[in-house]
């Protein structure tokens, strides 16, 4: 029971952080129709800058903001130089060009920071654990859940209630119309891209203290982000939220329980072998099942 609660909370924490990544990625795909593999690199930049800021004495909140800002700037630059030329191109071109961006980002980071992973400490004020029912749960992870949910709410409000948000929603379904309304679509695209990068950077910065800040960290999480937005439906923020939480919970709970469940039905050896494999692929099985049932995801956005 205690294990279940702890794992569920971990799953939620993973899920909301994944949502920060998924929201940006699904917006970029939904509005600009671009598959952006380099999204994980923004996450990585956010983590690296935050960790470095903290190392140089910046307070935690400042470090996180620095990471987010760096990612947003990187996003704007990338959009202006490369991504802008990918609109309307076929998906393979986009995949390959943004794959190239990953190579540049990873190597670029190694030039600036070297290849040794960085570390970022959890600030003392947040380092403890609090009792929840009968478990002792880390404060920092609770903070992550809170931040994630707060940002999700803020994003939902922003998209639903502000003028810029309305333009973004309109851009998702009626791209030409928005241009015809006299809105500077070029600027809008840059803003959306930078916003997505910002959210990714926040996720990277917030996760830096509990994960390893290293080259390639973006790719590990990128696949999961894609799985989340595909399950949710490309272009849908609500879908990104549902998808990200589903992935977070299925992955975390899967890893915790599948080996246990297998032990109950087969030999320990086989259970270990299969368990490791099955829990790793649980999220992919989920995606395959969802896509077979609903080939465009759970909340498909009908396109322009």
């Amino acid at each position, binding site marked *: 029971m205690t294990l279940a609660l702890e794992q569920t909370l971990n799953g939620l924490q993973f899920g909301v952080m994944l949502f920060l990544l998924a929201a940006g990625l699904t917006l970029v795909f939904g509005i600009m129709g671009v598959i952006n593999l380099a999204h994980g690199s923004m996450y990585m930049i956010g983590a690296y800058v935050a960790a470095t800021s903290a190392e140089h004495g910046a307070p935690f909140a400042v470090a996180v903001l620095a990471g987010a800002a760096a990612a947003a700037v990187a996003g704007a630059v990338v959009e202006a130089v490369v991504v802008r030329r990918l609109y309307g191109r076929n998906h393979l071109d986009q*995949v390959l060009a943004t794959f190239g961006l990953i190579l*540049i980002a990873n*190597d670029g980071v190694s030039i600036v920071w070297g290849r040794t992973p960085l570390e970022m400490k959890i600030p003392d004020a947040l380092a403890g654990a609090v009792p929840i029912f009968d478990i002792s749960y880390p404060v920092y992870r609770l903070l992550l859940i809170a931040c994630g949910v707060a940002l999700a709410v803020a994003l939902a409000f922003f998209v639903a209630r502000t003028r810029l948000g309305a333009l973004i929603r309109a851009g998702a379904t009626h791209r030409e119309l928005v241009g015809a309304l006299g809105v500077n679509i070029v600027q809008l695209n840059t803003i959306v891209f930078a916003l997505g990068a910002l959210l990714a950077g926040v996720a990277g910065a917030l996760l830096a203290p509990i994960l390893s800040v290293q080259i390639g960290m973006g790719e590990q999480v990128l696949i999961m982000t894609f*799985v989340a937005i*595909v399950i949710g439906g*490309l272009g849908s923020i609500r879908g990104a939220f549902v998808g990200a939480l589903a992935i977070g919970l299925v992955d975390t709970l899967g890893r915790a329980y599948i080996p246990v469940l297998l032990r109950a039905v087969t030999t320990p050896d086989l259970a270990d072998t299969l368990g*490791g*494999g099955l829990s*790793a692929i649980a999220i992919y099985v989920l995606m395959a099942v969802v896509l077979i049932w609903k*080939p465009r995801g759970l909340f498909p956005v009908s396109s322009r």
Partner: protein
Amino acid sequence: MYLATLLVLVAIPILAAIFGQPFWVNAATRIVIYGIVAMSLDLIVGYGAMVSFGHAAFFALGGYVAGILLTNGIDSAFVTWPAAMLAAALLAAGVGALSLRTSGVYFIMITLAFGQMVYYASVGLKMFGGTDGLPVPARSTLPLIDLRDATVFYIVCTVVLVAFFVIASRLVESRFGMVVRGAAESERRMTALGFPVARYRLVAFVIAGAVAGLAGALWADFSRFVSPDMASWTRSGEFLVMVILGGIGSLAGGLYGAAVLTGFESLFSGFTEHWMLVLGIVLILIVLFAKRGIYGVLAGRRHD
């Protein structure tokens, strides 16, 4: 141009012997094997517009099946190679039947997911080495020919490459191929004419998978080692890069792309350890400005 390529392929072992550089033959063998995979991928990506991001899974499965047979004393190439192809074909039939229900970016993602499943399966199945991989004790054997000789093995691989090239060239101009190519441009028209497009695509997908499986078996023979990263998504990405570098929809481009990508790594890592940065830039430039790749440069005119 094909003749020139063939001459180069044949000349390599001769030059290697003259200059006393046996590793040239090894490098060329690696390029030829990857070339086979890239060619098989071009068949479905370039001609069928099915962008599969999980093609490495078939390569890996073929390699593992051959490797496992060889580990268990079965070394006739008449068993290991067909077995690898059959296994890969069966996997492709399953993956294809499910994935081809989706299209566009969803197809890319679901093939990625299946690729990841194979990757994690090979990591998790410790009886086949897990992350450490599986050493292959011996090469497959053919009557009358000694495959243990590097040059002989290279020639056999080149024969396979050329044979597949010929078969694939016939395939794309055959009645079957015209349907697949027509569907890539106008699925609606092909369906309206009465062609069961999904079925045709599945057959193409299975053929491509089976050939990648054969290449995997050749790889197992060549490197005497199979490991999970033969199925990683970055490996699938590299195969896609080879297809576009060489010229998508040109078949021979698969070989050129394999040569460039493999050569790139060796060439540039000599100059700088930041060859990935250079590759990233080159990739972006090619996608943005040189769509037809190396084949386009060499051929000078549009292929049809």
